């Protein structure tokens, strides 16, 4: 295997870089830009943003919930492919999945008992 085999990749990197830079440049030149007050407001899901203090602090619990959601979400994601090939994997797959779910269950119990799911103190 020689380095020359990677030449196409190098070319691709160069072309994509040129394309990205060029398209941003060209669109900024060609596009009509007429600023209005509403356009310059920060966009936030239809809510008019608070004017007083932009650096509003969110409770850290938002992040905690988000993280917990992702962890347990992945569990579900893993269950889908297993369900598709359930027949082929048979007992082996079942055992593997049970191990997986038990570990997550332990995590769940831990989070629950430590108060990770409670919002108010």
């Amino acid at each position, binding site marked *: *295997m*020689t*380095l020359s085999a*990677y030449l196409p990749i190098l070319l691709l990197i160069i072309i994509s870089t040129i394309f990205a830079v060029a398209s941003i440049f060209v669109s900024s030149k060609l596009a009509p830009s007429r600023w209005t007050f509403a356009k310059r407001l920060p966009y936030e899901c239809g809510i008019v943003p608070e004017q007083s203090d932009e650096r509003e602090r969110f409770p850290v619990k938002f992040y905690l919930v988000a993280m917990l959601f992702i962890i347990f979400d992945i569990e579900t994601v893993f269950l889908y492919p297993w369900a598709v*090939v359930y027949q*082929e*994997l048979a007992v*082996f*797959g079942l055992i593997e999945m049970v191990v997986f779910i038990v*570990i997550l269950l*332990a995590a769940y*119990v*831990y989070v629950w*008992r*430590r108060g990770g799911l409670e919002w108010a103190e």
Partner: protein
Amino acid sequence: MPEFTPPQVQLAGVAPEITLLVSALILLIVDTLIGERPNRWFLPVMATAGLVLAGAFAASTWGDNELQLSGAIALDGFASFVKISLAVFGLLTVWVGRDYLVRDALEDSEFYALVLLAVAGMMLMAAAADLIIMFLALETFSIALYVLVAFKSGSLTSQESAMKYFLLGAFSSAFFLLGIALTYGAVGSTALYGGRDPVSEPGIASFLSTSPTANTGLLVLATGFLIIGLGFKIAAVPFHAWTPDAYQGAPSPITGFMAAGTKFAAFAAILRLFDATLFSLRAEWRPLVIAIAVATMIIGSVLAVVQDDIKRLLAYSSIAHAGFILTAVIAANDRGVSGALFYLATYGLAVLGAFAVVSVVSGQDEARVRLAGYKGLFFDHPALAVALTLFLLSLAGVPVTAGFFGKLVVFGAAVQASYSWVVAIGVITSAIAAFFYLKIMVRMYLEESEGESSPLPIGRLAAGVIAITAVATIGFGVVPGPLLRAAEDATMFFQPAPETGQAPLGG
């Protein structure tokens, strides 16, 4: 669609790791179910049980020589030696940690669980026969350590250390990943060994042995990135910047654990990767490793001289020690591997002992970590001072301590490999290093303590750990034979069946 055949489930190789993971989970669950109690003695007991069991599993596979789990896990003497040592390090950490946590009212089940997980990751590092597994192991113990470094939840320095450690650690992981990717590009696999047929079962070793004429340029490039990733973990210059900060901010028992365990695990990976798998590429990686070793020895020793915080001082000393051990890696011979193992095991014990003393002396909230705090320690607490002296002498490599014999075997290996000039630098930096160990001793013995000597509460567990490590430091210094023999047996890396004719070790 091809018929699915479930892979063979062989758990012997990873039994210690699984034991530790399960113990960690049980520990967490039991603690949350039992709830708050004034004295949670069962936590260290459970952690101890898990570590002992893991060590026993590792010992039971002593002498095996095979690959398991589709060639991802090596089951060889090398892995067993490292795993047993790591289990011991874990035990000592848990015991010192218990006293420390109780004193500072920080005790939580997470501490023990994270230590167990970190040990599991480190063990996996030693057994990994696939770069992906190695990365997995690296991340497992690194993430556990990031949290452990920040375990002094009220302390800003602890948080800061953890943040620095985490950011730089993540950065180095990226390099390691890049190295893996390039290796895959060069070899077509991330397996270290691979099968006998390099086409159907590719691996680095089989790639190198069966296609000697192959273009290894990309693999050499990959090697460079792998060195960066692992060099970070062993705190080699120029990837050492995190070390003093992380060591300073972390709770002292964890600092000791990082110095002993992280270094051992990362060096285990380095030894397996460079001295076994990439042995035939040594002409390419040696110059790089030599440069790193020389820089590490010099920078570590010289910068330690000006420290006046004992944890920072020991951090720089640990950098210097990484350099000394790298001389054994450079040697790339049997003596080098066994020497490095011996060195790492005895260094680990000495440094754990030293940090056990530090965590006792530092007192509530680690208020007393300046060197000035050690003034007159001998007159107030002779036993602690004598123990710390012993550890420092071992780190300095003075005879009758294990550290001396470690230095002898490591330097000896490099001399044997005709790298006497690297050893000469090692010798000079050792002399510089002796200076700052002496500095601590001067404080303890030759200066009067300032003000009132406050009584130090010395927990029974911490005292036990100090005693064990002190006895081991002297014991392995006077009778290094058994440990050395074990280390020499452990130089038997997994060898792909002899027909391929590739000896993993030469010299």
